[in-house]
C-alpha cells in the first residue's frame, strides 16, 4: 500500500532545473502532492522538498536515482514521515464579524493553537502551522462560520539523521574528480 514519502533534492539554483526535477516525476506519471523550493543551509544550494503519496518505496528509490543522475543535482534523499520533522503552514480568511469576543469561531481558533495574523474591519486572517491533518481539522471546524479564502503551503521538512549536507557535498566533490 503506497504511503507518503518526502523527497529532498539539493542543487544549485539554475534556470530549467525545476523542469528537470518535475519531468522526472511527470514522465513516470507520478503526481506531486506538494513542492517547496527554498535555500538550504549551504550557500548557493537550493532545496526542493517534494511529497508524493502514490509510490511504494521501490518507486521512490527509482525516482531518486533518476533525480540524482541529473548533472546539476547534488543529492536526492527520500524519507518516511517518521524520519523527518515536518510542517505546513495554512492561512484562513474569515469574516471579522464572526470572530467577535466570545464567539464560537474564536474559541475554535484558540483550541487549535492557531494565530490571528491580521484583523481588518471586514476580514481576519488566521494562521495555523502543523501537519496536514491539523490544518485540515481547523478548516473543517471553521467552515460552518464561512471561510472566504484558504491556502496551504507545501511541506517543509527537516531530516532526523545527523549527517550534514555539507559532508555529502564534500564527498561528492572528491568523487567527481575520480
Amino acid at each position, binding site marked *: 500500500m503506497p504511503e507518503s514519502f518526502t523527497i529532498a533534492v539539493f542543487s*544549485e539554483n539554475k534556470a530549467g532545473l525545476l523542469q528537470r526535477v518535475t519531468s522526472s516525476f511527470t514522465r513516470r506519471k507520478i503526481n506531486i502532492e506538494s513542492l517547496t523550493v527554498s535555500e538550504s543551509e549551504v550557500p548557493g544550494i537550493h532545496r526542493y522538498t517534494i511529497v508524493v503519496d502514490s509510490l511504494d518505496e521501490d518507486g521512490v528509490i527509482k525516482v531518486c536515482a533518476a533525480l540524482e543522475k541529473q*548533472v546539476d543535482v547534488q543529492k536526492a534523499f527520500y524519507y518516511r514521515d517518521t524520519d523527518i520533522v515536518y510542517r505546513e503552514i495554512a492561512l484562513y480568511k474569515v469574516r471579522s464579524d464572526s470572530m467577535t469576543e466570545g464567539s464560537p469561531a474564536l474559541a475554535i481558533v484558540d483550541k487549535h493553537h492557531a494565530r490571528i495574523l491580521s484583523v481588518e474591519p471586514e476580514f481576519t486572517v488566521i494562521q495555523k502551522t502543523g501537519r496536514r491533518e491539523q490544518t485540515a481539522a481547523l478548516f473543517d471546524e471553521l467552515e460552518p462560520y464561512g471561510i472566504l479564502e484558504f491556502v496551504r503551503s507545501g511541506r517543509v521538512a527537516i531530516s532526523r539523521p545527523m549527517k550534514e549536507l555539507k559532508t555529502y557535498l564534500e564527498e561528492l566533490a572528491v*568523487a*567527481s574528480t575520480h
Partner: protein
Amino acid sequence: MSTSTKPKAKEKPTTERITGAEAVVRCLIAEGVDVMFGYPGGAIMPVYDELYKYQKDIHHVLVRHEQGATHMAQGFARASGRVGVALATSGPGATNLITGVADAMIDSTPMVCITGQVPKHLLGSDAFQETDVMGISIPVSKWGFQITDASEIPEVFAKAFYVAKAGRPGPVVIDITKNAQFGEFDFSYEKCTSISTYVPRPILDEAKLKEAAELINNAKKPYILFGQGVILSEAEAELKALVEKTGIPSAWTIMGLSAMDTDHPLNVGMLGMHGNYGPNVNINECDVMIAIGMRFDDRVTGNLEKFAKQAKVIHIEIDRAEIDKNVKTDVAIHGDAKEAMATLLPMLNENKHESWLQEFKDCDKVEFEKVIDAECNPTTDEMTMGETIKELNKITGGNAIIVTDVGQHQMVACRYADFRQTKSNITSGGLGTMGFGLPAAIGAKLGAPERDVICVVGDGGIQMTIEELGVILQTDVHVKILLLNNEFLGMVRQWQQLFFDKRYASTEMVNPNFQLIAEAYSIKCNKIDQRKDLVGALTEMMETDGAYLLEVMVGKENNVFPMVPAGAAVADIKLEP
C-alpha cells in the same frame, strides 16, 4: 589559450576581445571539432558567418533537414568515439533536432547540439521562429543551457563537451540568443575536467567486486550479457580477457554488437526479441548472470517476472539509475566497465564451461535448422535479407561499419552481419528511429573515413530521410547504401500477420523509382531481383569508388524469427509462426 590543465594560481589566461559568434567557433576548435553538421537560418547566422571564416579548421556539412544533422552527428560519434556536433537555427530548426536528441539520449551517444535563439529582449514574446527549445529538450537531453550573454559561452561550451562524453554519455543542447552571438567580450578558453555535482566514474566498491568474484568462481553456469557500455568505456580488451580467462559464454545486446569478434568461440550471439535462440532461453538456465554495460531493456528481458529468476545477478553499470531499475541485482557494481573488469580479472579463476557452452551450441543447431538455414540458404525464388547480409560478409570480411535503419532489415543485419572490429555497428537501438540509417551512415563515414561504411536500410526508412542523399552529392561522402526493398513496412506487417489476423493496415508501400532518385543525386546505383546477380552486384557496390546504392528486391512477406512476442518470457521464444 586553452590548456587541459588548470593554470597556476594568479596566472591569468590570455584573453582576446571577440564576438560571441566567433567564440562559439573558437570553442569548437578548442574541443577538437573538425567536422560538424548543420543547417543555417536567421537566428544562427552570426555563427555561420564565423564558420565561413574558419572553414579551414571546421568542415561544416550542410544537411538537408536538421534531423539529418543529429543522426549524422550520432553516426560520427559512434564511429569515431568523439563528440558529434549539430547546429541549427531557432524555432523549426531547433524542433527538428529533437528526435535525434531523444535517440542519442536513450542510446548514450555523446552529442552537442547548438541552436540559435531570438534576441534576449524578445524571449517569451512569440517572436518569429521563437520556440522554447530548452523546455522541449530538457526531458530528452542529458544537460542543456540557454546562453543570453556572450561572456557565458566559453564556460558553457567547456561544460557541454565534458558532460556529453563523461560517465554515461548523452546529448547536450546549447541555445544561444542572437544578441549573445553579436556581443563582444574578452575570450579565453579552458577545458572542463570535472564538475563538482557530477560523478562520471564512480569509485568502485572493492567488497562488491570480491563478492562478484566469489559468485563467478563458484558458478556452474555463469553467463555474461554485455552491452554498449563495453564500447563506450573502451573495455573491449578487458572483456575479452575476462571471458577467455573464465570461459564464460557471452551474449551481446544489439548495442553491444562488435564489442567482441562475432566468431569468438565464447560469443554465443545476440540477446533480445529477435536475438538468437540459445542466448534467450539460457537466460533462464544460468546460475550466475553477469550483466556488463547494459540496461535490461524490455526488448531484452521480455516478461520480467519470468526473467532469470533462478540466477544470482551481478550488474556492472556506470549509471546508478539503471541498477535495480528493471532487474533486481544481487551484486551491484556501480562503476566504469573497463575499470571494473580490470579490477575483477585478477580475482577470477581460470575456468572452462564446456558442457554449459554445449547447451548454447545445441540451441544453435536447432535455430540453424528452423530459421537460419532457410533465411541464409534459401531455396525459394524470392531473395531474403539474410542471404544478402551473408554474401556481404564474404566481401567485407566483417570489417565494414554496418549502419542500419529500423525494422526487419535492422534485425536481420544485426543477426547476420559479421563484426571483426569494435564500433562497427551503428543502429538506433533504444528509440527505434526510422530514418536514422542514411544520415547516421554519412556521419559514420566522416567519423571513420578509412573504413567502409554500409547503410543497410529498408524501403520505408530510407524515405524518411532520403533528402540526405543531397549531402552525399554535395559533400561526396562514399557510403554504400544497401536498400532491402520488400515493398512493405515489413516489421509492422509481420506483427499484423502474427497478431492482427493479417489486416495489413497502411503497411504496403507504393514506392518511387529509387534508381531514378539515386541518379538524380549522381549516385551510382543498381537494382537486382535475381539471386544469380547478388554476389556480382554486392562486389560492384563495394569496389566502386564513391557512393553507391544497391537495391535488392526481397520477399515481400518474409518474417524475422526467432521472436519473443512482446510481453512473453524469453524462454517462450518462437522459432516459427
